[in-house]
């Protein structure tokens, strides 16, 4: 079954994927500073999967990779939550905040949006983003496959 769209659609989709993914990653990384976060950014990135599936109608069989990515994201999220517990505080305690280093900085007053702040929150946003990208792509993949609008290349 030929489910490919026209060459115009495919070319535009290929071009549009780049800004969509970049915007999604921006949302994930700035989750602790601006509206957005892991889930929203992940959903934006996963929408590029939808675009590609609709335009090309075919995709490599990467179900296993996606489901691995999903489980890894969730495991890492929970391990990050347990960092607080292991350091002697409670679960989800932000024990990295204010300790310096890559995500441990502090901010005060009006600032241009320093990304290396927030303790464990940006790290959690990143792993949640990873999980949401994988899970939503997997759902789209499965739905497209079941409805017959996707050819799977082995």
């Amino acid at each position: 079954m030929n489910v490919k769209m026209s060459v115009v659609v495919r070319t535009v989709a290929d071009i549009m994927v780049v800004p969509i993914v970049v915007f999604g990653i921006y949302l994930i990384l700035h989750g602790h500073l601006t509206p957005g976060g892991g889930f929203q950014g992940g959903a934006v990135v996963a929408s590029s999967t939808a675009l590609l599936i609709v335009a090309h109608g075919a995709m490599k069989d990467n179900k296993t990779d996606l489901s691995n990515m999903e489980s890894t994201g969730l495991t890492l999220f929970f391990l990050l939550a347990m960092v607080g517990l292991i350091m002697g505080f409670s679960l989800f305690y932000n024990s990295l905040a204010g300790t310096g280093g890559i995500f441990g900085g502090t901010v005060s007053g009006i600032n241009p949006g320093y990304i290396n702040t927030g303790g464990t929150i940006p790290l959690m946003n990143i792993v949640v983003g990873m999980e949401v990208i994988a899970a939503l792509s997997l759902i789209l993949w499965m739905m497209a496959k079941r409805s017959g609008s996707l050819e799977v290349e082995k």
Partner: protein
Amino acid sequence: MNVDLLLQSPVFILGIPLLFAFLTPLADKVSKELRNAVFIIGLLLTALFVSLMAYEVYTIGSWTYVFGAEDPTAITDVSFFRITFLADGFAVLATLTIIITAVGVGIYSFGNMKDFDDLGKFYTLFLLTLAGVMGMVLTSDLFNLFVWFEVTSIASCGLIAYHNERGESVEAALKYMIISVIAGLLLLFSIGFFYGEYGVLNYFLIRDSMDGAFIDILAIGLVMVILSMKASSVPMHMWAPDAYSEAPDSITPFIAITSLGSLFVLFRLIFFVFRGAVEPSSIGNLLIILGVLSMFVGVSMALKQSDVKRLIAYLSVSQIGYMMMAVGVGFATLGTADYGAFGVNAVEGGFFHMINDGVYKALLFLSVGGIIYAADTRDLNRLGGLAHSMPFTTFFFIIGGLSIAGIPPLSGFSSKLLIYKSVYLYNPVLAIIALVVSIVTLALIGKIFFNAFLGPDQKIGMKIPRSMILSMGVLTVIIVIFSLFPNYVVSEIIAPAIEALGVAV
């Protein structure tokens, strides 16, 4: 700042299943053995932390665990706006009941499910359900309760639909999902009433500010209906027989445990939170009516079943009735002299019956699962002569069956005796109904026993895996312990639970 690890145990009871739920699909990619190892380590670690919490509660006393706080065990006024967990005698009773069944079911799954593929997801759903039920019974925040309620519903719905090649399983799962979604949304609706009126969600604060206005009564009624619905009480039981009988054999007791978890939450809420704001006899009598209906309708519907698993499912609905009736009698007498005279015994009997029921129901469902595994049919008219080839399963079934019927040496008798004696003093009719239901239960167990196990050897039995025997053996040992020391169980586990609810005499 270091907090004692023992005081962190409530969060580990929740966290370990969650972490291992996400680890199992990863381990599944490596090898089957690693996946099984990860799964059983997760279960046993949870059991370890349940026992650590029990030890801490019985030696030091109860405490509140505050999420995201620097010192989670130090309570301040501000911390009430955070999510809190309550570790007390009642939480220990509930988590113990859940974890005993979960470990039994977990070991059983190794043998029972070994012929199916994609088990990584199966174990993930199992551990997520475990985390959900544990969260439900440990939390002391109404909105958090809703979250765990939904986690449990979604995960157990996936478990029920596991055999999705069979239409009946999908139908049962769909029914369960519709019921759960309605229940979940109504729960959120009633939580909205409390939040709108008092602006707080914490059990303690709601208890202190509740004034028994009309809107409170409405919300309490909604919560009670929802939780009895999830506890599969008649007349909201229609999902239970389908879900119990169509879930994979190893999972059925675990679905039953989620019902028991809802019942624990219901009792926690009415005793701990709503007690001051309501007329005790109104809620008590409502519970008694629901209980008597469940007992009677459950056992009468069981009479006409020829599907062995469906029969046990209806018996389990009728057992829920005993607990509701007993606790209802206790609640109805609150605040009067009768409570000290027999009400507290009724509550003791009800709670004792809950922990007993969790274990013997699991044993019954699992031994029936063994029958189905060996003979590949559930039809009582086609089964027969299995005692020749399955001596162990026969023995386990007898233990579980006599316990559910309340035959003297076994644990079911001890709790039922407490219920009969105390309920008789409230209203003799209730005790008579309870006795009659017990007798019919015994007859039904006899029916299964004669049909499935006795008779000439039909050579249909095939050997069941050793892990299934092992898990049933573990549950049998626990039943025997409860049977030998019922007074010890009541004084060491049940009495602290009643004290934690603030209704000790």
